[in-house]
């Protein structure tokens, strides 16, 4: 099979491209996610840099052929560094009219549009609300329209295997994939390997998938449906071992890595919620690593159990999304009061309320900062890319245990489901920070404080001689006894605040990409990293004085942040919300930052950020 790469006819032109954006779209039953991930891993193995953006419908299975039932997967692969899944696709694969309708507007002018003509029957057009057939009415004149009767061709390719029509038709995503492999001169080995593993127990399905894949490839070769094929050479990325990783997977193993390096039992209390559930799933498969997962009756029980676990000496954690986060706020106050380590992960999604549960957003930052009764300060950190979720999860554990405090880690739907090639960290580069619970009764008092961090001792039940009581009532510093003393209360409120501020001693300085001073600084946080990075790099290539600071540590801010900000004339703050970070920066540094807010359930494009940068130059 791998020989296909070398069988190109001489008379076909082969262009070298720097990068390409493909979007596969079809009905949720059409297997577009699989097609996308296969193309992704093939490209990753080929050494391209990649970024992906899956887009699921909110329904499990919306009616076949309907607009809400459309499922999409966009991927950007390149021979140079890339930061986003791409603003607009170069190629759109539309398996049915609904997919065409909801996606074609994004396709680049003169982009390649591949459609499965077999699914453009009157009934299909009606479902998508097309008055006339777009394949015939000239409305697609601005694109390179490639019409392929994929269903028929797929059925043909699997003839004789005894498959029913439904099963045969399921293979047409492989046909489409085969076509794209041809178009971009990709080897099919890895996909073939994976099909073999996946359908090992169903030989006819296996064979059907292989045949369809090959059929799609051969079809291009035979028919010259495409005038040319392309090559996207490998990127020059840092040497090392790579894996394609989604944010949720990276986050899950980052939590495990943190707990392991702390030498603590990992306890996850969680309640399923999109887009956080996958972390629960990932961790529940890791029992061999000693991970305990507890699927609780609700989010309050989940955090309650996590607090109990930390109290008993484990690294308690909980993972959720916005609405679940809202439910945990009372318990977060308790965790703050009893000063136990705890990691609270919020995979943000579109809101308010149930909102757009499968879409992305960054609008929980102020909730993370202030969404608790009274003064309950908690460190807040955020991951910037799918791979960075690993690192920040590890950081969350480190900060929580060193400072005896709950820590909120923010990610979002875009990071959670998006993926990127991830240079595997070396375990020896992950510092160990073994935690030893307090055992010495001499001089023990539950609210004695470490002078450097103000952390209290972690004394766990079962330890002889350290019997003590904790709880949510205000307590005397030192003894931990309940105290209604007014001055002690003020002291404790300020101590808890100070304790969080001291985390700043323990986090890296804010870095800047680009010059350390200049005209415009783009300040971002979380999943906007890629779009900002891309926009800023390109603006810099165009000679503009722009830099990028991406804040991973949001509470407390890095100590040098004010200094960093003040070296620029203007500060642009793009966010997928109504200006949360901008608000914090204004209140903290009294700087007239310029917010760039987008709240559409989807990430920024590079172009949007570039436009805003240009406006400030």
């Amino acid at each position: 099979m791998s020989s296909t790469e070398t069988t190109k006819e001489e008379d076909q032109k082969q262009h070298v491209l720097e990068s390409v954006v493909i979007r596969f779209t079809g009905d949720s039953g059409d297997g577009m996610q699989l097609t996308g991930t296969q193309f992704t891993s093939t490209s990753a193995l080929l050494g391209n840099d990649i970024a992906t953006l899956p887009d699921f419908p909110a329904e499990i299975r919306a009616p076949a052929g309907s607009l809400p039932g459309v499922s999409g997967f966009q991927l950007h692969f390149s021979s140079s560094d890339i930061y986003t899944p791409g603003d607009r696709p170069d190629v759109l694969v539309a398996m049915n009219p609904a997919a065409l309708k909801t996606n074609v507007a994004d396709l680049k002018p003169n982009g390649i549009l591949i459609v499965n003509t077999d699914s453009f029957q009157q009934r299909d057009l009606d479902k998508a609300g097309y008055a006339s057939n777009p394949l015939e009415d000239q409305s697609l004149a601005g694109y390179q329209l490639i019409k392929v009767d994929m269903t028929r061709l797929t059925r043909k390719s699997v003839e004789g295997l005894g498959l029913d029509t439904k099963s045969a038709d399921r293979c047409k995503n492989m046909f489409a994939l085969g076509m794209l492999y041809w178009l971009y001169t990709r080897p099919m080995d890895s996909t073939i390997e994976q099909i073999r593993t996946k359908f090992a127990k169903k030989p006819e399905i296996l064979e059907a998938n292989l045949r369809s894949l090959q059929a799609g490839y051969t079809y291009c070769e035979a028919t010259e449906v495409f005038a040319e094929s392309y090559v996207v050479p490998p990127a020059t990325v840092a040497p090392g071992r790579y894996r394609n990783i989604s944010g949720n997977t990276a986050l899950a193993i980052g939590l495990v890595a943190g707990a392991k390096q702390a030498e603590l039992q990992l306890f996850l209390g969680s309640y399923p919620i999109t887009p956080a559930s996958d972390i629960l799933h990932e961790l529940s498969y890791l029992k061999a690593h000693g991970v305990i997962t507890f699927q609780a009756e609700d989010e309050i029980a989940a955090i309650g159990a996590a607090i109990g676990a930390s109290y008993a000496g484990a690294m308690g954690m909980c993972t959720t999304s916005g609405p679940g986060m809202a439910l945990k706020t009372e318990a977060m106050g308790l965790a703050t009061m009893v000063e136990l380590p705890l990691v609270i992960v919020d995979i943000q999604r579109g809101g308010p309320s149930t909102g757009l549960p499968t879409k992305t957003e960054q609008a929980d930052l102020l909730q993370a900062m202030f969404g608790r009764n009274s003064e309950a300060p908690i460190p807040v950190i955020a991951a910037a890319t799918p791979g960075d979720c690993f690192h920040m999860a590890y950081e969350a554990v480190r900060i929580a245990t060193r400072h005896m405090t709950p820590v909120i880690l923010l990610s979002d739907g875009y990071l959670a489901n998006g993926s990127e090639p991830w240079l595997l960290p070396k375990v020896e580069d992950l510092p160990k920070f073994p935690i030893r619970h307090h055992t010495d009764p001499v001089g023990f008092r539950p609210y004695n404080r470490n002078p450097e961090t103000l952390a209290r001792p972690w004394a766990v039940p079962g330890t002889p001689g350290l019997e003590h009581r904790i709880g949510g009532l205000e307590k005397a510093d030192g003894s931990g006894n309940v105290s209604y003393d007014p001055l002690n209360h003020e002291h404790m409120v300020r101590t808890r605040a100070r304790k969080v501020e001291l985390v700043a001693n323990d986090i890296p300085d804010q870095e800047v990409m680009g010059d350390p001073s200049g005209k415009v600084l783009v300040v971002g946080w979380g999943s906007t990293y890629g779009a900002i990075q891309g926009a800023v790099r390109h603006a810099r290539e165009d000679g503009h004085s722009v830099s990028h600071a991406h804040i991973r540590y949001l509470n407390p801010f890095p100590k040098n942040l004010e200094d960093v900000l003040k070296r620029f004339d203007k500060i642009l703050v793009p966010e997928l919300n109504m200006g949360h970070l901008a608000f914090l920066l204004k209140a903290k540094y009294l700087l007239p930052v310029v917010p760039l807010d987008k709240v559409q359930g989807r990430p920024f494009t590079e172009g949007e950020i570039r436009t805003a940068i240009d406006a400030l130059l």
Partner: protein
Amino acid sequence: MTTGVESPKPLTKKDFETDQEVRWCPGCGDYAILNAVQNTFATLGIPKEKFVIVSGIGCSSRFPYYMNTYGFHTIHGRAPAVATGVKLTNPELSVWIVTGDGDALSIGGNHLIHAMRRNINIKVLMFNNRIYGLTKGQASPTSELGKRTKSSPMGTAEEPFNPLSLALGASARFVARSVDIFAPHLRSVLSAAASHTGSAFIEIFQNCNIFNDGAWDPWTEKQVRDDRVLMLEHGKPLIWGKERNFGLRLKGIDLEIVKFEGEPPADLLVWDARRADPTLAFMMASLGDRPDAPMPLGVFRHHDQPSFEQRVHQQLTEAQAKGVPSLESLIGAGEVWDVK
């Protein structure tokens, strides 16, 4: 100051007392329960540092402060959740919850029923004073229909829960009931709960002499007690009365009260707390709601089954049977490729 050395001498009640001033109203039933718990803990053969008492919020929930063990005064209604985390993390601890009728059945109802369903080895002591004490006297989910309180000046409009029925409906495998001032009985019920594998629910009638004084007097006052209370004793026929001349027998699917003279009739129901099927316990749970019937006390159900934390740790053990994989293997799982 306590020392880190485990004392070899047997524990006494005193070992469980703290230096904290007990801050319940004078005359509150909670004092008697505190006494009984301290006494019982001393007899269980468990080192004192292995006890953890988790509570919610309420007068009753101040309990941990007065016990010289590990204690966690959490937030309203959430003690079962916190205790679940404690027990799952360290199954060797003896985990007890102290809660009130409001804490357990109002805001905390869901956690309670799930703890029962899961059969996690946690003992829930619910002090039932049929009122919200700490917030100064509102109706609770166990307040009688029509009860006039600060929040129900014309009387409540809702029937109360029967806590034992609720627990049994949630498939609690150990269910019992006792009374604050019935010290020996209470201690025996507590010991029985301690001996059970899995979650235990114990309703303790408790007098709040400030906001609901005498709520249980119709059953527990010295004068009437013998006639109004039926002690459930495993393997013994159901007999009560000052003269021990009343008994219970089954009539179809109903409980019938029989008055007898001399020898008890042979067909009296013999109490069986160990039945797997909860129907009999369920039937008995609501007997006290009948005006003509006595209030049953004691162990209603005691059915051992593997506990949640046992099952969870069993899975960990199985998964680790072939050793604990390395962090490297986790990080490098799935399809990888090398860039030179």
